[in-house]
């Protein structure tokens, strides 16, 4: 990753959005042991910052704050994503401004 700093906690901004999170089903899933280089791409392109690597190098992904843009599907749909679907009926993000 670049040495340019990440200063923002994007989760604080996602917290102002309205979501109906589907706790039962993940609409996006990663393969087991995803390639770190591919995962880095997702860290950079996801506008919600859902793909994370902590200081100890542990990778994590949480679909709950998804903005449903599909960017991860375009860049990694054929590599480290095993599933990309839209959230189920009435679920997911609900833009009040858009």
């Amino acid at each position: 990753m670049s040495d340019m700093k990440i200063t923002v906690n994007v989760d604080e901004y996602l917290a102002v959005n309205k979501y109906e999170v589907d706790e039962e089903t993940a609409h996006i899933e990663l393969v087991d042991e995803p390639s770190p280089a591919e995962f880095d791409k997702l860290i950079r392109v996801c506008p919600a910052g859902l793909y994370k690597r902590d200081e100890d190098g542990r990778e994590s992904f949480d679909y709950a704050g998804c903005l449903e843009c599909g960017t991860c599907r375009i860049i990694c749909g054929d590599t480290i994503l095993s599933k990309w679907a839209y959230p189920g009926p009435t679920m997911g993000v609900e833009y009040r401004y858009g």
Partner: protein
Amino acid sequence: MADFDAIVVGAGLAGSVAALELARAEKSVLVIERGNFAGAKNMTGGRIYVHSLRKVFSDEELAEAPFERKITHERISLMAPDSNLTIDFTSDELGRDEHASYSVLHAPFDQWLAEKAEEAGAEFIYGIPVEGLMKDESGKVIGVSAGEDEITAEVVILADGANSLLAKEAVFYEKPPANQMAVGVKEVFELPAATITDRVLAASDDEGAAWLFAGDATHGVFGGGFMYTNRDSISLGVVAGIDAVANGDCVPVYQMLEDLKQHPSVAPLIKGAKVVEHSGHMVPEGGVNIMPPLVNDGVMLAGDCAMMCLNLGYMVRGMDYAVAAGQMAGKNAARAIDAQDTSINGLVHYVEDLENSFVMKDLHQYKNEPAFLESFDRMFNAYPALARDVMNSMFVVDGSPAAPIKKKVLPKVKQVGLLNIVKDARGAMKAL
């Protein structure tokens, strides 16, 4: 007998306008939208050029449309980390009602559009993601499926947006390549209308500015920043090439936006404002180069799912194309139903209409622009710095003896390379 004459997937601009035209032609039409209301899953920068809406609605109807502000100031900035050079253009011509442009927010705007289609007789169902297409044994699309439910129609119009999961089934279009798609991230900042008016030097609360930033807005990566004034809020965001960001040595796109917010020439615009939404969306910048087939047996594509979008660097367009394409799709679908031929042969007149319209003419005209912009590295790095250096040498007075401007400027130009500048100018002229 099919359940409906037509099914439209997606209640965005293309979808609702297509449904409106079908309803006006007295066809039964069902719009299936996965959001809980029209616009709930949609996002734009954004602004719409009104000309194509004027072919759908009367002046009286448009007067009630939830436009945010008429755009009367066009601003373009070359942004370096420590400087910003802005051109601010305004003219009487720019603001003329016949061809004005307006900032919009999708949640209010798409709901208004859906209401108009509903008033004309279209039916809408919300909160249902269409999961698949039904086909007969010949492969013709005859309806849609969602969960256990199946609904049939003579024709299905896909208007399901830039991230269409149905285009593959409809026209065997897998997905657009990452180097032809951009990702947009936007935040909406709430502010009193009068404060916004003052900050962008607009004449009234009905008028506002569109502002594009090249250079440091994306820290030199292919893309740019944008700002649009809404009535009571400001939309501020960044659009960057997906492939460029994924494979670049750069910060995440949301951090680009955070840094843009901190830039000294942007921060005062949103000072004291509250972020009320953080959104993301893809922009199909490749345009005609990545366009899927627009019709197949029983199915048509319109709007972002058909990649009807244009990025010229100084402007991004998509919504006026979506409205026009939706109108042509709706009208041609109605004609095909009347002629009892919704095969590809019956629907292909939609493509002919599009080809003869500004939609495809524009997209063909500018088909080299995406490739030119993507390779135009100097626009994102060297030129903003050159602009800063030239302006500094003109405007910074430190008491040292004056040197001729040419002597001050030429060394800066030489750093970039005079030939490079000539080459880029020629490239831009050719692509545009």
